């Protein structure tokens, strides 16, 4: 297992339960990449109808099971609230919600759910299935519960014999395995033996001071977030995404930029996020910001994750390219990989996620 983020940890957990002996290799240790820079979203609300929504729905069920089985990662079925600024956007949002097969949703007056929301919003849709976990704890707990061995060292390359991958070369020597799973997140595309078109998309998060009772209860975001997630625009896009954590802080996103692997702070983007947050929750104007950080979300050309056997080399499987949805999609991804590695029925049709689709 290359990568000890949420995807690698979930895969290790599912595979060991299927009787597979797993070694996880990561140069930074558990949750040191994108997993450590995320909010812990387990969302169905932002998925348009199609394969990713099916994966998200399956994952939503699995996360509830994992919380019961393993737990210790601040699972919170807080629900999502998508708000629309104008009647036109509300119409589009309502139609979108109606098209999401299998997703529970209800049109609401947003201020009934979030009393501190700004006045004058056209309306909103409540998604009770949306949830949140503490992603770093989730990865660490699943990895620990899996019993898999974690080796902290860099994977330099896949070892290839003929048309099969037989293991990995690491900073601590060669490791041989019947199967290698590439769950290297943002860096998953960069193995020369089996390259993939995975690129980083930069996102900032602002973190406020802790509150005894945070003024935000649900994951609240504007309808623009859904269009931005699926967008192919090169430049900066931002949309208001606001939620609290069990530690009492409020997390403020979301921005998307394609600037390679650069994670430098850009105060202009942070100011924009602040304006959107205060626009949605005027009460946050007096909240003090303690920190901010940038994370890199790994995305593929069609914005779908890459899950399944490599189309060039045997013994190699990919589980990557989850963009900003890796936490939410990890358990169903792990279930799919386990079916493909150890035998079994995949939870959803694997074809749309096949790594060979870009070839």
């Amino acid at each position, binding site marked *: 297992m290359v990568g000890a983020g949420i995807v690698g940890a979930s895969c290790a957990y599912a595979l060991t339960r299927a009787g597979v002996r797993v070694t996880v290799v990561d140069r930074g240790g558990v949750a040191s990449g994108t997993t450590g820079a995320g909010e812990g979203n387990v969302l169905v609300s932002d998925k348009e109808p199609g394969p990713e929504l099916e994966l998200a729905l399956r994952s939503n069920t699995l996360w509830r099971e994992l919380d019961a089985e393993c737990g210790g990662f601040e699972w919170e079925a807080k629900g999502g609230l998508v708000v629309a600024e104008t009647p036109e956007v509300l119409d589009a949002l309502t139609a979108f919600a109606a098209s999401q097969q299998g997703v529970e949703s209800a049109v609401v007056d947003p201020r009934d759910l979030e009393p501190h929301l700004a006045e004058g919003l056209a309306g909103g849709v409540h998604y009770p299935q949306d949830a949140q976990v503490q992603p770093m704890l989730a990865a660490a707990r699943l990895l620990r519960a899996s019993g898999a061995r974690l080796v902290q060292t860099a994977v330099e390359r896949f070892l290839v014999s003929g048309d099969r991958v037989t293991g990995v070369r690491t900073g601590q020597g060669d490791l041989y395995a019947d199967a290698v799973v590439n769950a290297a997140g943002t860096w998953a595309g960069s193995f020369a033996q089996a390259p993939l078109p995975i690129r980083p998309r930069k996102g900032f998060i602002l973190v406020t*001071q*802790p509150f*005894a009772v945070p003024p935000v209860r649900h994951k609240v975001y504007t309808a623009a977030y859904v269009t931005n997630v699926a967008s192919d625009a090169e430049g900066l896009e931002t949309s208001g995404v606001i939620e609290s954590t069990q530690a*009492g802080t409020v997390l403020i996103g979301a921005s998307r930029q394609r600037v390679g692997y650069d994670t430098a702070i850009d105060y202009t983007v942070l100011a924009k996020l602040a304006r959107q947050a205060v626009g949605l929750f005027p009460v946050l104007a*007096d909240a*003090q910001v303690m920190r901010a950080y940038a994370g890199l979300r790994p995305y593929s050309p069609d914005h779908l994750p890459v899950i399944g056997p490599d189309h060039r080399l045997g013994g190699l499987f990919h589980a990557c390219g989850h963009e900003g949805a890796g936490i939410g999609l990890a358990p169903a991804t792990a279930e799919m990989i386990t079916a493909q590695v150890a035998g079994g029925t995949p939870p959803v049709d694997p074809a749309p996620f096949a790594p060979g689709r870009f070839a």
Partner: protein
Amino acid sequence: MIEFRFEGRAISAEEGQSIGAALHAAGIRSWRTTRFGGRPRGLFCAIGACFDCLLTVNGVPDQRACQTVARAGDEVGP
């Protein structure tokens, strides 16, 4: 000397003194409790680095008592 009020009680401070120092000198060692354990907090670093001494000054929450100069008539509380 000037006077300000902490939870209704009159506290005197020298001109230019911080609210935190004035409270500490008046024998008030803590003015807030932590959000998990309910533990008392007051001055610790006294130079603005530790944020233990947060309090509300004239309705503005989460001000560092050690970095806020006391003014006559200030209303101060947890």
